[in-house]
């Protein structure tokens, strides 16, 4: 099962290496990872998506908690969540197709963030399944470049 694990950590050198090392040391691949400071000074949030065995990941979560620089760890896989991912994609846009492309993108909820002579750069923000569907939708237009932020999540109020 694909797990969503978040950790509040001290914003210090080495902490990401410790967290990632615990997971990669078991041969598990982190599918998505995002890190950023929180509203509290010195505390960052790490959000990871890790596919793997439930039992092993339960153990990993406990061991993450044991790290001195880690303040709190939650496996939010089954919790009610708000999740978002941001994608930037640059799509080939010859003048003849451009208008149709932009219309399709905007209908899907994307916005145009840059235009060049031969390409446009689009941005979409949404749940992972939605942004994935949008990427599929753009494939016929020949995607030149793509960057995904990795998902970030917050528990819905009332959830753990």
């Amino acid at each position, binding site marked *: 099962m694909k797990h969503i694990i978040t950790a509040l*950590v*001290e914003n210090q*050198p*080495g902490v990401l*290496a*410790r967290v990632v*090392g615990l997971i990669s*040391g078991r041969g598990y691949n982190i599918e998505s990872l995002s890190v950023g400071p929180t509203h509290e000074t010195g505390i960052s949030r790490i959000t990871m998506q890790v596919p793997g065995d439930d039992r092993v990941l339960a*153990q990993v979560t*406990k*061991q993450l*908690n*044991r*790290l*001195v*620089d*880690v*303040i*709190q760890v939650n496996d939010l896989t089954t919790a009610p969540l708000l999740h978002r991912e941001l994608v930037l994609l640059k799509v080939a846009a010859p003048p003849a197709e451009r208008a149709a492309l932009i219309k399709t993108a905007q209908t899907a909820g994307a916005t145009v963030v840059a235009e060049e002579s031969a390409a446009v750069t689009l941005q979409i923000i949404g749940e992972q399944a939605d942004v994935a569907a949008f990427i599929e939708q753009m494939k016929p237009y020949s995607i030149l470049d793509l960057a995904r932020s990795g998902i970030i999540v917050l528990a819905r109020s009332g959830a753990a």
Partner: protein
Amino acid sequence: MRTGADCIIDGLLQAGTTTVFGLPGGTVLDIFAKLYHAPLEFFLVRHEQGATHMADGYARASGRVGVCIVTSGPGATNAVTGLATANMDGIPMVCVSGQVPTHMIGNDAFQEADTTGITRAVTKHNYLVKNVDDLPRILAEAFEIARTGRPGPVLVDVPKDIQQAKTSATFSGPVKIRGYKPTPEASPRDIATLAEAINKAQKPLFLVGGGVIAGEAAAEVTTLARKAQIPVTTTLLGLGAFPETDPLALRMLGMHGSVAANRAVSECDLLVSIGARFDDRVTGKIALFAPNAIKAHIDIDPSAISKSVAIDIPVIGHVKAVLQALIPQVEPRKRTDWLNQVSAWAREFPLTFNRDDQELLPQEVIEQVYLATRGEAIITTEVGQHQMWAAHFYKYTHPRTFISSGGLGTMGFGLPAAIGVQAACRDRTVVTIAGDGSVQMNFQELVVAVEHDLPIKVVILNNGHLGMVRQWQEMFYKREYSAVRLRQDDRAANEQIDTTRRKGYLPDFVKLAEAHGATGLRVDSKREVGPALKKMLAQPGPVVLECIVKPEENVYPMVPPGASLTEMVQNMA
């Protein structure tokens, strides 16, 4: 204003350090310059691995934090095995390592290694100090982290320019680390649940591990076991946490456990692990481990719960506090049937060996050591068959008297660890039980014992083999002895030594001991052992006693790897 090096020395002193093990180099010259004037006893080792094992032995014997100082690059990499050894067994240690100056880090500078990167997975925590003002706080934190919770080694990597930089910063505590909550308060509900389970159990068993020794809870275990009449088995690291001379003691369990202990595990209806983490050498095949038992586990480390064996009643907390709360809630019982049953197994299948054998057996040597020291020595071991026999044929009655690398199984641990033990306990008899293979891995450290008049006694059981590996090859690899013959004859074709150059066996341990300034003795027959041991114990200063023992003796009972604890091999047909 003080320098970073001053802060390091002050940090050690503030933490109560009296004794330091180590070896200098370019990036720790500033620390050693201050050490020159410091009220700290210093042991100059001959290899940094020796320093880590000495600090480790010192910690295991005393309960205090062991301290070592090593230089950057090769000094730090040499320390890695010792850090990993301490980390696996939960031993408090602080290792200060030098690092190249801050502006050179990452440039492949001379003697640079990414020490915090290399040691991240083998320490409880580590620091790379980038600002001298942080040093006093970091040292205080390092000691706090090393000794609290599940103890462990902490490495502090200090670049040379930070050692030289000036600061007015001090730290007087208390240590506060947001993410570090080492001692969870045990829930009274969990304790009550466990008490009820114990009161209800017909066939309960205690499984006692190293956590009881680290948590200073041996007295509580003994009180509880006697009050409720519950038999006790221990892990390798738990030896000494419960007196093995007590009628309730079933001795060690697991791969080389006693029949009584392993049967009791398989038959009990309640298994209470007290500070034991269900290592695979303890459980055998997990699916068949304690199949009839409700399983309870008292541990300070939440991540130890249900790691391999699913636990029904977890109690997370400091073992001493948990037991103190538990004792009044547990009712006195007789449990006559169960105790009769386990003691019948113990009588029928004692840990034993063939006393009629004409050759000198390694087990007999250890039994003789037990008698000659009246069970009052502190024993350290290397790793291999001799380690298991040291667990079988010496009886441990007090915590911190059996000192061995359990988790990592580090050959080369026993001799330097004994030096650390003796440094902590000057008036105790300290005996290392060693194999002829392991003891060579850090033999050079014997010089340290000689120089400081630490009268360790090293008993080498020379079977001419890497015996434990040979035993596995005998039992599971068709007796094809590959790379286990330390004697020079009978080797596999690809290891053959030209007959004209054969010396029989190298090195000559008696000469080797003498070359290091110690006394060397050798025996090769049963009748010599008793007198030789007397002589060894009476002789002042370090002594090496080499016992030439039967070459192909095996450790029994043995649970083959992956088998259940009921499938014990008693003897080779």
